């Protein structure tokens, strides 16, 4: 079956994540820390915080996704597992899709679930909290999908962490704009539907193409 690689990679990476809890908990705590530092930087003015909350939470999500991305393929590359995956008869794209989905479950989903709580700290009205969660739910898979291409391209190169952020952050801009824009539009009394539709479109396109492009990038790295 074609999807067996997907399920195998998903099960294996989830098991690994369950045994190394600190790895993904670090990303989550990073998200909480960054968003909590911001009010300390700009002051406790509730109106200002409400205005910048969508952007702050979204940028926190972008940055904490980057933390997990560096490890997406690195350890498998170091110990040769990745090479075995590339040589195996199962399609590499499905294996990559499984790893991407795990990355989202482990790094993206906790951020989505934590976001409403942090939104309360920023004094967001309850309607916007739901919308913020929805926009992150649609948006964080895009971050995992686009980011995995960057992770594969920077595999095993010098200072790959800094390079990864330089390559990937410009490509995150559309997701940031529409994700944070949906909540901001709602706060401003405009319908957020257009933003959410575009975010959904970005999600479909990136999830569809990314495993394939990532597999090509991995083969280049393994050559």
């Amino acid at each position, binding site marked *: 079956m074609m999807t067996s690689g997907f399920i195998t990679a998903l099960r294996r990476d989830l098991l690994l994540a369950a045994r190394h809890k600190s790895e993904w908990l670090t990303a989550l705590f990073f998200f909480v820390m960054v968003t909590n530092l911001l009010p300390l930087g700009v002051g406790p003015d509730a109106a200002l915080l409400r205005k910048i909350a969508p952007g702050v939470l979204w940028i926190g999500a972008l940055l904490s996704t980057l933390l997990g991305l560096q490890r997406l393929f690195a350890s498998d590359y170091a110990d040769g597992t990745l090479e075995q995956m590339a040589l195996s008869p199962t399609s590499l794209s499905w294996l990559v899709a499984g790893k991407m989905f795990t990355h989202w479950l482990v790094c993206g989903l906790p951020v989505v679930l934590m976001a409403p709580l942090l939104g309360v700290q920023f004094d967001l009205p309850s309607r916007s909290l739901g919308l913020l969660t929805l926009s992150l739910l649609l948006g964080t898979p895009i971050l995992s999908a686009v980011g995995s*291409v960057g992770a594969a*391209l*920077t595999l095993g*190169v*010098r*200072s*790959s962490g800094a*390079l990864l952020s*330089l*390559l990937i*952050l*410009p*490509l995150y*801009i*559309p997701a940031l*704009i*529409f994700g944070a*824009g949906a909540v*901001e*539009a709602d706060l401003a009394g*405009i319908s957020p539907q257009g933003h959410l539709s*575009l975010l959904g479109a*970005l999600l479909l396109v990136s999830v569809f193409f990314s495993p394939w*492009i990532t597999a*090509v*990038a991995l083969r*280049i*790295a393994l*050559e």
Partner: protein
Amino acid sequence: MSNSVINWFKYASPSSFYPLAGRLIPYFSLAAVLLMALGLWLGLFVAPTDAQQSEGYRIIFVHVPASWMSMFIYCVMAFWSALGLAFNTRLSGMMTAALAPTGALFAFLSLWTGALWGKPMWGAWWVWDARLTSQLILFFLYLGFIALQSAIDDPRRADRAGALLALVGVVNVPIIYFSVQWWNTLHQGASVSLTKAPSMAHIMLLGMLIMALGFWAYTIAMALKRVRCIILERELTSEWIKRNALD
């Protein structure tokens, strides 16, 4: 039979492209100097003073062609990248690598002249206009490409990884452009409009076009020069270089 078919791949090999590039460089360099001199003369002396912006607008003759070139060079890089990945030609990757610094230069030049122009016209070095923002992001994409290529030691891997990045980038450029445009209209309305006066004097358009052609020639000359250096670097141990190129 074989004589009637054009050999499309004749110059795809570095050993035959190297001397061709060497022959072409003087022509394009000369064309660049002449065209830019003509364009600057038209722009700085011949073109009439603008009614609204007086003499300050004349930076347009560098600013607009530089912006055009920065966008165009990224497309050319994507073209060579696609060719390189499809046909596995070594020269394509070298061309992409040779074009990137010039593209980054033009992107930077466009931002810099834009800031110099913006200060007297809108009273600000930088505004979060859609075009400025997307030009800045294009500059970041160039930097990312150059950083990725210089971080990978194996030149073949660097070429292929860079090619993939350029292709991903070129798909994203329009998405980024339109999202930034929408973000801009949502945030600040049409307070700053970069739209120029609809009727542009013919002489101004001509000056800009000639400057753009001059930048083209400059880009080609620079890319050929750089690609020759890259070829020398990578093929230093090969037989044909020892025989011909280092005379």
